[in-house]
């Protein structure tokens, strides 16, 4: 496969699928059993495979519905492709339990993809999630953050555990 084909696969996957939410393109360009490694906190389970990639795309659209992804540099070395993208979007949906802030954010993300048989079979995705939360106004500067008092953390863990147990008990009851 030509170098430019691999470059094009990644560029389309990033700009049109990851950026614009084109799920049909994911079917075309991502292998069913692709191994995904991402820092995005999409949920308690790390996404994997083609379905996992779709999950990431849906999650990104739900948090930043107007997201725009620009592939600034995409380069190919053998069957690996590296990409540097600029992500820009307005936070109009909840991220985890953080309510939508309505703020616009912009940051860099780095990717490395493995390609075989014209499809992505591996993805490594790095970004600073702390920076995105700081741009949403949900997190202070890391230089402003001290360690939380142990007693408070212990209390919160206890409350969290109790809530979860109660929920489980309620759902188990007929």
């Amino acid at each position, binding site marked *: 496969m030509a170098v430019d084909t691999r470059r094009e696969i990644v560029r389309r996957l990033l700009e049109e699928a990851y950026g614009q939410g084109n799920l049909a393109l994911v079917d075309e360009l991502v292998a069913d059993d692709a191994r995904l490694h991402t820092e995005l*906190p999409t949920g308690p389970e790390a996404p994997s495979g083609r379905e996992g990639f779709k999950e990431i795309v849906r999650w990104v659209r739900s948090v930043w519905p107007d997201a725009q992804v620009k592939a600034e540099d995409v380069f190919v070395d053998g069957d690996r492709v590296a990409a540097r993208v600029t992500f820009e979007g307005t936070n109009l949906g909840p991220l985890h339990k953080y309510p939508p802030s309505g703020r616009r954010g912009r940051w*860099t993300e780095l990717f490395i993809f493995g390609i075989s048989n014209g499809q992505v079979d591996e993805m*490594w995705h790095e970004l600073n999630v702390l920076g995105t939360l700081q741009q949403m106004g949900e997190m202070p500067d890391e230089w402003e*953050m001290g*360690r*939380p008092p142990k007693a408070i953390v212990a209390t919160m863990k206890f409350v*969290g555990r109790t809530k979860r147990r109660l929920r489980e008990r309620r759902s188990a009851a007929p």
Partner: protein
Amino acid sequence: MDAAERATEERNKTALRRLFEDAFNTRRFDLVDELITSDLKLHTHIRPGPEGLSPGSKGFHEMIRWIAVGWPKSRVTVQELMAEGDLVAARFIFSGTHDGWLHGNPPTGRDAAWNEMFFARMRDGKVAELWHELNIIGILQQIGVLPPLWEMGRIPPPLLRVMIVRKRIKRRFLRGDRAVDAWRTAAISREAAD
């Protein structure tokens, strides 16, 4: 691809590998200037002080010295290096023990490891522009600054306020000889090196 291009790409990859393995892992900071340009454009989330990094290669020196002070026995393991033309990318694992000051927070002695990536534009075999991505939340969780329950949801704003106020109070009262945070230690080691 002709042989000259391939040689350039190999040289570029080697430069990045040496930056990790020779300069950082063995703490030979004097080698850094052979591997980066003096007008380096550095895009990183690492800030060795509230005010951020100096421009040019000086900023890179500040960054790696601060990391070496916060994580004294840390090392970088290169997982993958790739190149085309004047671009190079690296994926690596950073692992170490938190035995130094970090963001003005005292050492915890905890072991931690995480993934990072570099993306570089090279000029004459040296790094001229560098993008560095890592997830700082994961690190703060591993050393206990951010509670692990972040996974479960939002840190309640009152707890966040407690964390900030505690930090401010500590800063005010510990300023002086006892407040040897990494930034000051790094400044000291920089002076010693010069």
